[in-house]
């Protein structure tokens, strides 16, 4: 299904990233690259620094050393909302939906970046504000169709079961039309059927929108199946980087996962 998808050049490079919290070294000297249109998985045992790596990429954390080059531009300190403006969207490990809002409003929030009306126009709900609201709603409906969540459009997200909440969070990230999508454990806590759905959505997003995807996942079956490349972290260090087949036979990775003589 992904044969007409073409992996392009490197769009993001993390160069020698080191990040520590007090005395704890979360990441030490990690370099990795992400290529356009690919699905890259970051795996590793708990506490390996996977989520920290995502946080560095979209500017939630600022590394003490090293820097991130995104589409040819080097950045050192960047706020997350600036990363969003440049086309990086993400979902969170623990669902971070806006609990007091409906599914529709949650996804519409993902479109806020595209809206230009000032607050006076919005207060009068007139002219540009109204036009934008309706135009963006039309786009959001496309995402809703794509992720098959039409039936819960007006439901407050707090009332939804876990699997659907994860899907709404993906919808909110997709609404921003990202070039690069960071998914932090999109399948954690899901049953087999929900995992299959989520895999299908991830592959479809990658295929239809050409979105570059970086994901963290613990389910090895899923990771080996859908990834183009895999980066393996352990205790904040990179111990493997390659295609699923290469990772499968990498002795360091096997040692980290199954335990071995260090």
């Amino acid at each position, binding site marked *: 299904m992904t044969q007409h998808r073409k992996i392009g050049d490197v769009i993001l490079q993390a160069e020698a990233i080191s990040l520590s919290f007090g005395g704890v070294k979360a990441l030490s000297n990690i370099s990795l690259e992400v290529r356009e249109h690919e699905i890259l998985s970051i795996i590793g045992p708990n506490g390996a620094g996977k989520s920290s790596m995502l946080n560095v990429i*979209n500017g*939630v954390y600022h590394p003490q050393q090293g820097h991130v080059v995104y589409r040819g531009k080097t950045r050192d300190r960047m*706020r*997350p*909302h600036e*990363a*969003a*403006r440049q086309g990086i*969207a*993400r979902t*969170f490990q623990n669902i*971070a*939906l*806006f*609990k*007091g*809002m409906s599914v529709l*409003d949650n996804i*519409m*929030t*993902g*479109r*806020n*970046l595209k*809206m230009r*009306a000032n*607050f006076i126009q*919005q*207060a*009068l*709900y007139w002219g540009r*504000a*109204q036009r*934008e*609201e*309706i135009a963006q*709603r*039309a786009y959001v*409906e496309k995402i809703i169709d794509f992720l098959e969540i039409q039936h819960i459009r007006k439901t407050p997200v707090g009332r939804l079961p876990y699997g659907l909440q994860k899907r709404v969070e993906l919808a*909110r*990230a997709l609404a*921003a039309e990202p070039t690069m999508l960071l998914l932090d454990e999109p399948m954690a806590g899901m049953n087999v059927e929900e995992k299959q759905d989520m895999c299908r959505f991830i592959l479809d997003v990658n295929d239809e929108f050409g979105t570059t995807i970086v994901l963290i996942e613990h389910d090895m079956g899923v990771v080996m199946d859908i990834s183009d490349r895999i980066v393996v972290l352990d205790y904040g260090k990179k111990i493997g980087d390659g295609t699923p087949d290469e990772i499968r036979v990498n002795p360091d990775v096997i040692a980290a996962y199954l335990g071995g003589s260090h």
Partner: protein
Amino acid sequence: MFYRESGQFKSSYAADSAIFTIAQDRVFIAALLALSFVAIPGLASDYLLSGILIPFLILSLAALGLNILTGYAGQLSLGSAAFMAVGAFATYNFMVRLPGMPLLVALFLGGLCAALVGVAFGLPSLRIKGFYLAVATLAAQFFIEWVFTKFGWFSNNSSSGVISAPAMQIFGYPIDSPASKYLLTLSIVAFMALAAKNMARASIGRAWMAVRDMDVAAEVIGIPMLRTKLLAFAISSFYCGVAGALYAFVLLGTVDAQAFDLHRSFQILFMIIIGGVGSILGSFLGAAFIVLLPIGLNLIGQVFHGAISTQFLANLEMMLFGGLIIFFLIVEPHGLARLWQISKEKLRVWPFPH
């Protein structure tokens, strides 16, 4: 039975995102507006207008202001009365020092001054949240009250620090009778409530709620924290400022800074807790409740012909407020507005449970 939306289909996103999507709601609101704009000014007694409806509307506006900040944007504030004071004193100064300034322009500029002060005291919100922010806004409350008492310039050097409303008129039409004051207040409040509702359902409202519900995720999705929070402070303080000016000029006529003390801030906070945090309707319900409760208790007192002392009634009022606030915080944190919403949902499917 009558409140049912069956058969009302929407065929455009514009219709689906209208303020009132159900026809019965539109009829109800139209009737309410007609009643309040046409029937009440002609029929209501002066006591009903000046004693109940005008204070209700003005306090609703202040509650609306606090609700934008606390209910929508999630920034706890104990300084609403201070921003009301800024609005009142600024409007007063614009009117006294610049003769011939139209009343509405002075009100607007007064609100704008309150907005600026609100932004200044909102700056700590970028670093601190919750209780700590509440304490920072408490500083605004004490500081501003002190400034207006200490520096005579703000009250045009009146000996007692009191400001008195100059004669008010709009387009040559004097605002002096209770009915005209009521209509002025009602027009401003209705317009500003509509504006608040519009903001709440547009992108700025979603940005506020996103910051309230999950600030990290909001920022990751591209919502600039600084701008969103400060805009909430500015708009909220603008509403409070206009409410303060109306409170000073239309309701009381003469005020000093003590009219806007901490007690007033708490009163407005109670309104949104009882009425409904994060709801436009809730601001009105809460204000109605707080205005009507003492009047209702007084009526009960009269029924017993002095068997209950007024002192006891005053204390009873305090106890009831305290009890109700605890009740709402535990049982229904979204207040009267949520109860209203639940009953509407039930009504839509009545007599069936689902």
